[in-house]
């Protein structure tokens, strides 16, 4: 072990912000991407993303009588799959497993203090972690959404619109998935900062989102699914008791969702700024 006389003498001065912030953000993103994409937390996400692709691929290649194949409305088929599987399960659970672990995972493995011992603004740390979560879920579930749409619509002729409409729908579904990751991601990261056991807030949010179509107009707006449903290119009935009449236009849905996500991120930033490290009972 050696400590040369130059100790502390040749440490380069940090660049001024915003160059420093960019470098630090890249450092966080690099480390978090490694932990997220090379760790076990990506496996449920890959499974959720791969499930519809696999099933729809099977449906596309399995030999069906031509009258049945001609009778399947691929657009309606995908609308149903998207509403039931993607909106309710894949995006929700995918974001749950990735985002709730961003801080909770580090607290559990007692390694969050290494970040806190770096000369980085904690809000920047939060931004870096969130970006990695968003990129992971957005890319994987976005590819799954677009791929599933292609596999659901192209093999079946009935009700198929023109190419321009098909492309528009594919883009709308994919964008809805990305915004879903943004909204649920922000909420789950917040939950991971406040709650030790993620099952409780996850179940509560799941129930809240499930009951959303049946809530009063004002309460419906305090959710993610409300805005996501408003952005869907094809609307299906939620059931005889659902209140569908007050869905907003995508022009209002996007800012509404951004507002919900922004609020959750602001609360997370406040929390992370004031978070203490004790690891007690983690």
């Amino acid at each position, binding site marked *: *072990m*050696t*400590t040369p*006389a130059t*100790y*502390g003498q040749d*440490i*380069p001065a*940090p*660049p001024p912000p915003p160059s*420093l912030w960019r*470098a*630090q953000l*890249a*450092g*966080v993103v*690099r*480390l978090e991407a*490694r*932990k997220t994409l*090379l*760790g076990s937390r990506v496996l449920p996400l890959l499974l959720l993303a791969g499930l519809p692709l696999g099933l729809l691929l099977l449906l596309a290649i399995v030999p069906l009588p031509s009258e049945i194949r001609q009778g399947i409305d691929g657009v309606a088929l995908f609308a149903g799959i998207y509403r039931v599987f993607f909106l309710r399960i894949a995006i929700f659970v995918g974001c749950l497993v990735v985002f709730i672990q961003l801080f909770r995972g*580090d607290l559990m*493995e*007692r*390694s969050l*203090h*290494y*970040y*806190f*011992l*770096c*000369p*980085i*603004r*904690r809000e920047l740390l939060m931004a870096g972690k969130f970006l990695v979560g968003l990129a992971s879920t957005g890319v994987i579930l976005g590819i799954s959404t677009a791929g599933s749409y292609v596999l659901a619509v192209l093999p079946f002729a009935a009700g198929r619109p023109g190419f321009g409409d098909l492309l528009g729908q594919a883009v709308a579904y994919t964008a809805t998935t990305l915004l879903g990751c943004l909204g649920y991601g922000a909420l789950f990261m917040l939950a991971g900062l406040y709650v030790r056991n993620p099952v409780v807030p996850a179940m509560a949010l799941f129930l809240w989102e499930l009951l959303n179509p049946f809530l009063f107009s004002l309460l419906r707006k305090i959710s993610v699914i409300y805005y996501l449903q408003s952005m869907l290119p094809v609307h299906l009935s939620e059931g005889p008791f659902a209140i569908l009449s007050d869905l907003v236009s995508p022009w209002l849905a996007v800012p509404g969702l951004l507002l919900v996500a922004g609020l959750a991120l602001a609360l997370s930033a406040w929390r992370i700024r*004031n978070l*203490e*490290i*004790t*690891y*007690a009972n983690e």
Partner: protein
Amino acid sequence: MSGPVLRPAVEADRPRDDSIVFENVSRFYGEVLGINRVNLILGPGITGLVGPNGSGKSTLMNLVTGLLRPTQGRVRVLGLSTDQPEVLFRRVGYCSQFDGFPKGLTGYQFLYAFLRVHGFGHGDAERLAWRAIDRVGLRDAAGRKVAAYSKGMRQRIKLAQALAHEPRVLVLDEPLNGLDPMARAEVLALLEELRQAGCSVLLSSHILHELDVLSDRVVLLDSGYIVAEGEVEGVRDEMEEHPLQILIRCDRPELVAAAIFEHPESVGAQLHRDRRGLVVSTRDADRFHLLLNRIVVDRGLDIERVEPADADVHALYEYLIGATGELR
């Protein structure tokens, strides 16, 4: 543990920009006391934190590094608030007691990744990571996953992480834990070199004799309170209720024992079993040394050595914390 807090008056009592300053700091965990009303100024050099389990050592260190915030009072490090991590951790490094690591990283990747989070570019991060790895003697194991490291290697890589950006203030919570004797000696040598480089090192250890050799000053904690702080000998001199013990190795210890009892400053003497020395208890060390000089000259004694027998951290611990404290 009772009695007043012993604080030898020293010039360093004035806060400076190279100091760690606690101003009336208390920290509670709910209703449980962490530390209470701590006032402390620690300048450059090595400060040893001593105390039993739960005495508040780790709380004190976590407060210095901003991982905890005071319930009351204020902590400043080099004139900086601990609420400013973006500035503070350019100058402060912390080897904590927490034994967790990010999964899947090798020792080198661990250091490199967090140096990039500091904002260093690739080349600088690489250079600093290897330099820190060399400092703690882990080059051969740098390519192995941290998860596969032994306790001592994990301790060393944590030390490397605290040192990698070459901070002026180092806070080291039990850095010698789990180290084999060779590695322990190397870390002690490293700390000595850091002291010579002008760093402030705040160090806790349960290995008291090593703290004794290394520390410029000690802070003794018990149940969240500072029991004593200052240079070891200065603190010892203040403890009037415990006479200073002086070891004398000489050829005729009985003669010394008989001679010193004629003088009131000596309150006791105990001969060694080997009859080649004795331990004298005195309330006035200066007068005793003058007396001893006279005895040596008058009686022609052959003195091998004279040294304090209880002016060390272990003795302070025994006297001030004693049986109530369980050594870590």
